[in-house]
């Protein structure tokens, strides 16, 4: 437990705000260099705009005041020109920002998450921390936080430039205006110190509280719980409980919100004071003829735009910690270790699979799921792995497939350790029909041929395979092999049995040398189950096969029976020897026999 926590802290340190900004900029400029630069240039120009207009306007106002109408035309034209430049620039960058920085980058990030996930080892999917971080990383991409960070920083820079430039211009009129700058800038720092942290805490607090509320809410609108509430009359109890929880949570959030609002009050007061002192100063100067009326008018416009800049800055700042924390999740996720590809070339399978002293533990689990497992599967053998739920059967099959790496011990194929073997070549050995098979909502063709895409367009082989599993009814669907499956995509909808047959067809379409069958799901009714098991036995006649089951009846067909209990192999042998052993197998056999005698 302690180790995990220190690891986490290191992770968080690894991605400070500055680091994240650096990464976001590098990544964004890598994907969309043109849009990225145009976006920045635009904001730089926007930042200078208030200062430039202040100068132009002061000249324009003075020319009108002094009745120099020639000058007025020139400055008027300049004013219109500066407007035109800034709005055209804004328009152009708005296209590049929306299409490039938001759309293109987000779609790249999205794909990067899928690509990363596919590269991870299957075992990592058993780790709830990995799943959580993946979920948060996806959220980060869906909410476009990375693109937002890119843009937020430019907004900061813009605000900074606009404030500094405007102050510089005002300073040339009177040094006293620099004082005003202090009042505009100080709230920035106060806000950063006070709000930044507070806001982050609030968001964290809300996240866990909201999870609780959302849970109660889901009880009211999901059919499973709605059913129980009606039949058991438990609705009113849960309702009261929810109200209490809600009031408690909301009260806390509101307390925070009020605190948050009052912390902003200080910034606001400073802002107003700064604004007022500036106006008062400008008034004083203009009445004493220290500055012209034109400059005074321009100052009024400049004050207003500086206010806008401050406001935008504060708003952006408030969201930053949250965005950073999401972006940190994204980068943390992208840093997760990946499955090694293995570099040893794989030859044809010709002797045996050996499992030697294998121990295995799932992430964050104290107990071993496999303990000192030793087993050999020779070429051509049919091996049935038997045991009750949770005895480690499926875990063992994943070891054989090279999908999980043993915590200790090793799995050898023809004497070569499975961990070193080139994964892509290794996987060619196996035809697999997993326990939780997938219903691919793709074409019928893809559903079968995805196991061996080299034969994807061999229509005859595909049709043959489907017939082999007794799926004549599948072949008669409209649209033939290329029809879309699944109602979600306006395709053909299959029954559970038809999907099961497709999974079987997919498994045998690939002509692997070793067949692995994990118990078809328990939701099948008895007749269907029998049909499918018989079929499978027929199909693996000439192959090496590993079958996982809790049905002792299957064992009559096996060359070798492996009985598992609590992660250990407790017996190996054929039916006759194991029955005479008087051990676990016999116990299982008799227990099952008695129910079906």
């Amino acid at each position: 437990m302690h180790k995990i926590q220190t690891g986490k802290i290191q992770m968080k340190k690894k991605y400070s705000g500055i680091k994240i900004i650096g990464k976001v900029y590098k990544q964004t400029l890598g994907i969309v260099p043109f849009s990225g630069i145009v976006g920045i240039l635009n904001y730089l120009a926007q930042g200078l705009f208030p200062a430039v207009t202040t100068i132009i306007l002061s000249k324009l106002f003075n020319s009108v005041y002094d009745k120099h109408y020639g000058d007025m035309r020139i400055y008027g034209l300049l004013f219109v020109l500066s407007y035109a430049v800034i709005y055209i620039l804004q328009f152009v960058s708005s296209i590049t920002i929306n299409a490039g920085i938001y759309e293109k980058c987000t779609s790249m990030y999205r794909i990067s998450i899928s690509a990363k996930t596919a590269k991870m080892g299957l075992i990592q999917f058993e780790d709830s921390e990995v799943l959580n971080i993946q979920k948060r990383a996806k959220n980060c991409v869906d909410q476009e936080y990375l693109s937002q960070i890119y843009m937020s920083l430019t907004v900061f820079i813009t605000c900074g430039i606009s404030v500094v430039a405007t102050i510089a211009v005002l300073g040339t009129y009177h040094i006293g205006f620099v004082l005003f700058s202090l009042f505009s800038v100080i709230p920035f720092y106060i806000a950063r110190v006070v709000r930044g942290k507070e806001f982050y805490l609030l968001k964290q607090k809300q996240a866990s509280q909201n999870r609780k509320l959302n849970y109660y809410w889901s009880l009211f609108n999901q059919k499973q719980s709605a059913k129980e509430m009606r039949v058991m009359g438990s609705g009113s109890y849960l309702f009261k409980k929810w109200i209490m929880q809600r009031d408690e949570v909301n009260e806390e959030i509101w307390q925070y919100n009020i605190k948050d609002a009052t912390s902003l009050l200080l910034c606001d007061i400073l802002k107003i004071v700064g604004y007022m002192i500036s106006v008062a100063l400008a008034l004083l100067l203009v009445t004493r003829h220290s500055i012209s009326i034109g400059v005074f008018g321009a100052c009024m416009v400049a004050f207003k735009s500086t206010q806008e800049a401050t406001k935008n800055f504060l708003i952006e700042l408030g969201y930053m910690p949250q965005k950073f924390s999401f972006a940190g999740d994204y980068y943390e996720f992208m840093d997760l270790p990946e499955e090694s590809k293995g570099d040893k070339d794989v030859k044809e399978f010709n002797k045996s699979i050996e499992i030697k002293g294998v121990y295995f533990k799932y992430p964050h689990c104290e107990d071993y799921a496999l303990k000192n497992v030793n087993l050999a599967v020779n070429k051509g053998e049919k091996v049935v792995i038997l045991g009750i739920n949770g005895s480690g059967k499926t875990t063992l099959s994943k070891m054989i497939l090279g999908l999980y790496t043993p915590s200790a011990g090793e799995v050898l194929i023809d004497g070569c350790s499975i961990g070193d073997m080139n994964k892509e070549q290794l996987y060619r050995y196996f035809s697999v029909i997993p326990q939780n098979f997938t219903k691919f909502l793709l074409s019928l063709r893809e559903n079968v041929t995805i196991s061996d895409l080299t034969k994807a367009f061999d229509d005859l082989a595909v049709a043959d395979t489907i017939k082999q599993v007794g799926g004549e009814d599948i072949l008669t669907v409209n649209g033939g092999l290329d029809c879309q499956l699944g109602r979600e995509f306006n395709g053909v909808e299959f029954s559970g049995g038809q999907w099961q047959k497709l999974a079987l067809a997919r498994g045998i379409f690939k002509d692997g040398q070793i067949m692995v069958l994990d118990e078809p799901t328990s939701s099948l009714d008895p007749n269907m189950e029998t049909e499918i098991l018989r079929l499978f036995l027929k199909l693996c006649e000439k192959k090496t096969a590993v079958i996982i089951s809790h049905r002792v009846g299957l064992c009559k067909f096996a060359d070798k029976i492996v009985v598992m209990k609590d992660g250990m192999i407790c017996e190996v042998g054929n039916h006759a020897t194991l029955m005479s052993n008087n051990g676990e197998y016999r116990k299982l056999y008799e227990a099952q026999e008695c129910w079906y005698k």
Partner: protein
Amino acid sequence: MIKYMFKSIKIILCNAFLGGFLKILQCVLVAIMTPLSIVITQRLVDSIERYHGGYIDYKGVILYAALLFVALLVITGNGLLDNVLSVILKRAVNNKLTFAIVQKFLKIEYECFEDSDVADTIKRMGEAPQEKILDIFLVSLNIIAQLISIIGTALVFTQVSIWFSVAFLGILVPMLWIDYRAMTIMNTIFDEQSEEERRLSYCAGLLEDKNSLLELKISNAVKYILNKAKAINNKVLGERVKTTIRSQKYFAVSTLFVIAWAAFVVMSLGSAASKEMISIGIFVALIGSAGTLLELSQNLSRNFANLSRQCLNIRHYYNFLKLPEAKEVISINDICFPRIEFEHVSFKYPKTDVMVLKDVSFSIEQGQKVALVGENGAGKSTIIKLLCKLYKPDSGYIKVNGTDLQDIPMADLKKIFGVAFQDYVCYALSLRENVALGDVEKINDDESIKRALKDGLADGLLEELTNGLDSNLGKIEDDGVDLSGGQWQRVAISRACLSDGSIVVLDEPTASLDPIAESDMYNAFSSALKDKGCLIISHRLASARLADKIILLDSGVIAESGSHEELMAKRGLYCKMFENQSSWYA
């Protein structure tokens, strides 16, 4: 849209009058400030000029300076007021409206939950429809405020000439329309998921799910799916960029409008000033506010686009409120030791054509153990749903001690039976609550709860937990203990055992057990519940052997019924199924 606007305003005012009223006041005040601050700036500049000319003394200048300060205070102070008011409003809306929403959830007829249209409505309504009402209220107020600002600004402009105001409105109206169009187009990107986008997220899902990834890895097809996802992604991106550019075309036109407006302002004010028709104050104030046009137009059209989007959303909430509610009947008498009878019951699910049950008749006597077996889709679970009054038979009767089930109030069902459904709920609450939800009156009756745990074979669990009955289960509370599938199951069965009803109904709550473990459990269970009747559903026939009576359903019809021995002797469908299953076990 207008209807929803006023409906929201009404709802907010009814539920939070003071907050709502203050919010309206604040919006109007800020709205007036926009044109007002132009006028004040103008007067201030003019007064300075006249002070310079010696026409007035400094008091005239100070008056307008003071007014300007007030205006500034209102505008800046607005931020704080805004925060506080939104907290107040959100609080009121959350407290009052969510109450009503949950009440509604509790009252609607159960069949709505299984209707995919209703599920869609509930999903689209979202988790916080009450906040959407508040959003519409706020957007509506903003729109009204902005309209006030526009009219006020146009009025200020009449100082130059009436034509100046006309030009202002003349440019603003088409700009509003153009911006609105552009934003509506952009909204479609966010709101509507195209088929391609759904395909994309499906393919991404295949790569992110441990079960599909297993198959893809072994098949070396990860790259194939990844490339497929990339191809769809490019297509989607192309579409979205196209849409973005299409909407930006509108913005291009609106940009031209703004530049034209700036040119017009400078030119007409310049010529008016050179003819000395306007004061320097007007010149300064109006040039300074040239940018206001763009701001006003974009804000207003953004709000309109927002409103039309929100109104689309809020429709689902109002549809939800219209869902039918279950009628309650009044309890007539106490029911004990009932005999349950199905008399010629036929049933089809709403909006479907297939008869799921056809003329089903059977009875369960007091203390009898009955097993309901049959293939998937034979109608087993439907019988339970009818028995639980979640649906009504299309014809025939279900009678409890001779009383029609429809005349028995929902609240009395727990006096007749306790149920563990196939998809029982794992409540992330305490163990006590998990059991007591079967009959909440017994929440503090430790003895009954412990007995129920014993009957449900979960007394071992109680000993394992450190806080006993009050241990939190599930992952929501920090100290919650997550149970295994088998343990949750036992808790669910204990819940069914708590009720005073004389029959326990078990609708296959044992899917995560293997067949033999299931039979063992039912065996232990039926001996623990000696006095009670029992209705067990399973497609595993080993479990059915225990029953006094087996009812075999085949496509909605009772095909066979009797004891195990009788049915085996018949050599019918039951016998065939039993032999098929037993072939794997011996």
